[in-house]
């Protein structure tokens, strides 16, 4: 008498005590990945948002206000009230905004310009509180460390200046890059500044020396995308332009290169998640996509498309759950990539014993 296996149909001869639906449930693989919405939860018009790789025109403050450089003007958009205010207009001297950066506490915003000067604005009173001259070409990158503002320029210099007037601290000139400086990021402990340039170099600077303490030359194209890990001390990620297309990871404690992943397209920006071991990268040609990666496995969690131009601008929301991306298609798109809610939301399984009356 052959005991052939019985198919899990609703057969009266089934040997299993479980119903068909229960069997199917047990056989289905456990879904490890969370669901990230493929569509932005908000899209804003950003007329005159430039399609220039070397600029950093979008930043999001801890006070939940977005600053955006559109042509000659800087606009502030409150994420809470959706109110828009124009902060400044540089068209009077034929100038164009090339970078914006919020101070750590969110009450000051620095504006870099094409001609090279940097203005600092107090947004609580909408007044310009400082004008820093010194660069002889456009300032595409800015980074705050307390009251000290670091600015990176096409003139190849990084200037570090105290924005308080009168300033007790004299200016520091960091010389090293051989071409335009396009990326500038402080480490989470505020001890090290990472800079990337069109010379394909990634430098790490400290507060004591005017020369870089580390030099990484592995990238084969401009390094604009730079991000320090908020979780692993000394872990730095960098992305290369069109001829490179890689995201590289560095252990700056030992100066050793770590992982490297070829993304297939120009890397424009990088940002680490605050809540999980993940990072997001934005790209140019050909898909103009946004990728979310798991670290250290470097598996792709999500691919978001929608921008019709290169995704040149990226900022993380203060609560760490969302990102805003900007492109030459003159739109700002908001995406929920690092939503915390996923871990709290328990999927109500029929196998769960205490969630229902049998």
């Amino acid at each position, binding site marked *: 008498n052959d005991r052939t296996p019985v198919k899990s149909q609703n057969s009266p001869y089934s040997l299993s005590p479980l119903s068909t639906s229960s069997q199917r449930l047990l056989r289905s693989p456990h879904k490890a990945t969370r669901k990230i919405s493929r569509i932005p939860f908000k899209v804003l018009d950003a007329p005159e948002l430039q*399609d220039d*790789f070397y600029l950093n025109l979008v930043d999001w403050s801890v006070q939940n206000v977005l600053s955006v450089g559109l042509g000659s003007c800087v606009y502030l958009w409150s994420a809470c009230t959706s109110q828009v205010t124009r902060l400044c207009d540089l068209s009077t001297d034929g100038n164009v905004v090339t970078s914006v950066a919020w101070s750590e506490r969110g009450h000051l915003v620095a504006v870099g310009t094409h001609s090279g000067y940097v203005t600092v604005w107090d947004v609580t009173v909408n007044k310009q509180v400082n004008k820093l001259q010194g660069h002889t070409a456009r300032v595409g990158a800015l980074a705050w460390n307390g009251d000290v503002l670091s600015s990176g320029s096409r003139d190849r210099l990084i200037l570090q200046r105290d924005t308080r007037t009168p300033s007790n601290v004299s200016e520091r000139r960091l010389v090293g890059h051989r071409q335009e400086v396009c990326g500038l990021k402080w480490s989470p402990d505020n001890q090290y500044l990472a800079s990337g340039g069109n010379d394909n170099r990634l430098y790490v600077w400290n507060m004591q020396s005017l020369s870089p303490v580390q030099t990484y030359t592995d990238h084969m194209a401009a390094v604009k995308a730079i991000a320090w890990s908020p979780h692993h001390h000394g872990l730095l990620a960098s992305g290369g332009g*069109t*001829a490179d297309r890689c995201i590289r990871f560095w252990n700056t404690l030992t100066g050793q290169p770590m992982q490297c992943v070829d993304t297939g397209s120009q890397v424009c920006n990088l940002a680490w998640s605050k809540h999980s071991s993940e990072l997001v990268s934005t790209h140019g040609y050909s898909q103009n996509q946004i990728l979310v990666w798991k670290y250290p496995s470097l598996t792709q969690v999500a691919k978001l498309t929608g921008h019709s131009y290169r995704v040149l601008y990226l900022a993380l929301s203060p609560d760490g759950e969302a990102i805003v991306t900007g492109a030459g298609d003159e739109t700002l798109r908001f995406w929920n990539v690092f939503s915390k809610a996923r871990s709290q939301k328990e999927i109500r399984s029929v196998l769960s014993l205490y969630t229902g009356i049998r």
Partner: protein
Amino acid sequence: MTTAAQKSKSAITLKGSAQIVCDYLNYGINSILFQRGLYPPESFKSEENYGLTILMSTDNKIKEFLSTTLEQLKGWLVDRSVNKVALVITNVKTLEVMERWDFLVEYEGDSKTEDQTSEKPLKQIKNEIRDVLKQIACSVAYLPLLDCLCSFDIQIYTKKDVDLPSEWTEAEPANIKDAQSVRMRSFSTNIHKMDTVVTYKNYN
């Protein structure tokens, strides 16, 4: 407001230049397929572009093949990894290469930038392309008659370190014995420069 600081809206981007080159190749290759009698003339339909009437294949297989090939090529033109595109015409029976059209790529302008643009007027570029297409059409005057059944293939010559996509295989260069070459005019977007050369068997 356009100041010297902002690029003009009519500037051609790297991506746009790659598209211009691929558009030329689409029309050029179709024109060659018609001129050289590789497919029945009834299977071609006329289209207007560059101020010319060009005969384009209506065969879906050919259209799809060209579309996929050129889409991949566009990416390689942006990455600056392609040196040459070759249209190879082979005798189906003897497998002998009868004729080869080489489309040579040169990269111009400031390569050390992520934002390469060209201010060259599109009209001027299209006129240059028109001149090459006219020369291709006139080549029928000196190219030997292909009185055997022929097929065509497209080969792309890239820099050494390019990853081979799944639908592609590596091939041998298509050399022709006792060859004669004619170089046509070139055109340039100021980002990409393309030279067209036809190589065929010398029957003399």
